[in-house]
């Protein structure tokens, strides 16, 4: 058991020390936006998404919650409600550039928690507001769309086939902070919005660290027909 813990700690150390990889065959900013690696990963328009959330917290604690996210890609705004599986609201906050807590029950009533939740939602669901975007390939051949943000952070979107992609957030010191893995079913039903993942796994690497596994329960387009969109952005 001690060996396992040591291995896990070493693994975590390796991951948290992982730096920004060098891109090969880099394409400059011109044309990068048209690269498929830079598209198709984010829901376009207004959506109401319901997920089950399995949270893995420090101390080997695991818990299940429901997450309701209402978002608008154009406005880059979101409303997030975290509930028990029975529907009791534990946390309700909105984001439209600033975070506003509507309702929160302890231990979800910490403003830092609200900021963290909304930062994760933006990372998962919104296309990065990049100062510069380039594309290239990793050493293993995976296609990458690299977004350099104004604050020095870097977001890499790594395509691994048609059904799996990774979003990797690096700090301004180029240390890896978050990994988001999104997967889609091999054969989605007709009409399924393909900018929305069926499963999302988010790993926060900085201490204390946590892991969230989101399973999509339902995705409902909202608002007028022309504001929804079913495809890429």
């Amino acid at each position, binding site marked *: 058991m001690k060996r396992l813990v040591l291995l896990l700690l070493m693994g975590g150390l390796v991951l948290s020390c992982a730096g920004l990889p060098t891109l090969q065959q880099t394409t400059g900013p011109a044309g990068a936006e048209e690269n498929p690696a830079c598209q198709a990963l984010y829901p376009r328009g207004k959506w*109401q998404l*319901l997920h*089950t959330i*399995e*949270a893995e917290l420090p101390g080997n*604690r*695991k*818990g*299940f*919650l*429901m997450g*309701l996210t*209402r978002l608008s890609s154009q406005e880059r705004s979101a*409303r997030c*409600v975290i*509930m*028990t*599986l*029975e*529907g*009791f*609201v*534990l946390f309700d906050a909105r984001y439209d550039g600033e975070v506003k807590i509507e*309702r929160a*029950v302890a*231990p*979800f009533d910490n403003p830092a928690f609200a900021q963290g939740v909304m930062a994760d939602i933006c990372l998962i669901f919104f296309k990065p507001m990049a100062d510069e975007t380039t594309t290239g390939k990793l050493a293993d051949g995976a296609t990458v769309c690299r977004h350099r943000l104004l604050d020095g952070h870097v977001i890499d979107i790594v395509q691994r086939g048609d059904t799996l992609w990774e979003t990797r957030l690096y700090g301004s010191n180029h240390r890896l902070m978050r990994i988001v893995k999104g997967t889609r079913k091999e054969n989605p039903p007709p009409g399924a919005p393909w900018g929305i993942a069926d499963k999302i796994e988010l790993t926060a690497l900085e201490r204390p660290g946590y892991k969230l596994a989101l399973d999509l*329960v*339902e995705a*409902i387009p*909202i608002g007028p027909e022309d504001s929804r969109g079913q495809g890429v952005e």
Partner: protein
Amino acid sequence: MAVIALALACLGWSDSWQGLKETAKTVNTVKAEFVQEKHMKILARPLVSRGAFLFKAPDSLRWEYKEPVESVLVMHNGQIRRFVNKDGQLVEDAAAGLQSMQVVVQQITQWLNGRFDENPSFSATLETGPKIIMAPREKALARLIGRIEIELSEQPAVIESVTIFESEDSFTRLVFQNVTLNTRLDDATFSVIK
């Protein structure tokens, strides 16, 4: 006992707190299906869940959701546990939200024992309908739960629906169906999860 039953039949089982308590004493088990609707102003449409609800006096409870997400919450011998379907297997949950559920489940078992008016956190009013309105006594609790409305069935000892108002535009309504009383329920129903 026969005299009490007759008196309740004349008065109506839900006309008084005493009537509710006396009727509850005749109930050993409750088995029901339920449909739950979560209403919130921000929702494009309500979240609908379905499941089964089982109770055995004095305080064993199984609250099982079958869709859209399969989960089982059980309380037995004072211990509350929840299991959730993860990739086809029921795994135990240790979420922080479980603490608040402990309070909710204890409240429900108190109702099923007919003790609606014995909660220090809520003041209870019995209204025609018949309906029980429970309002939080403390401001801190009122921020979380505005009020709870419990609609009673004409069938003695049966709750027809429970609506929990978090605010006027956010509420959860559970409607119970196919309620059967005093069927045999083994203790394992509340402790063995499969």
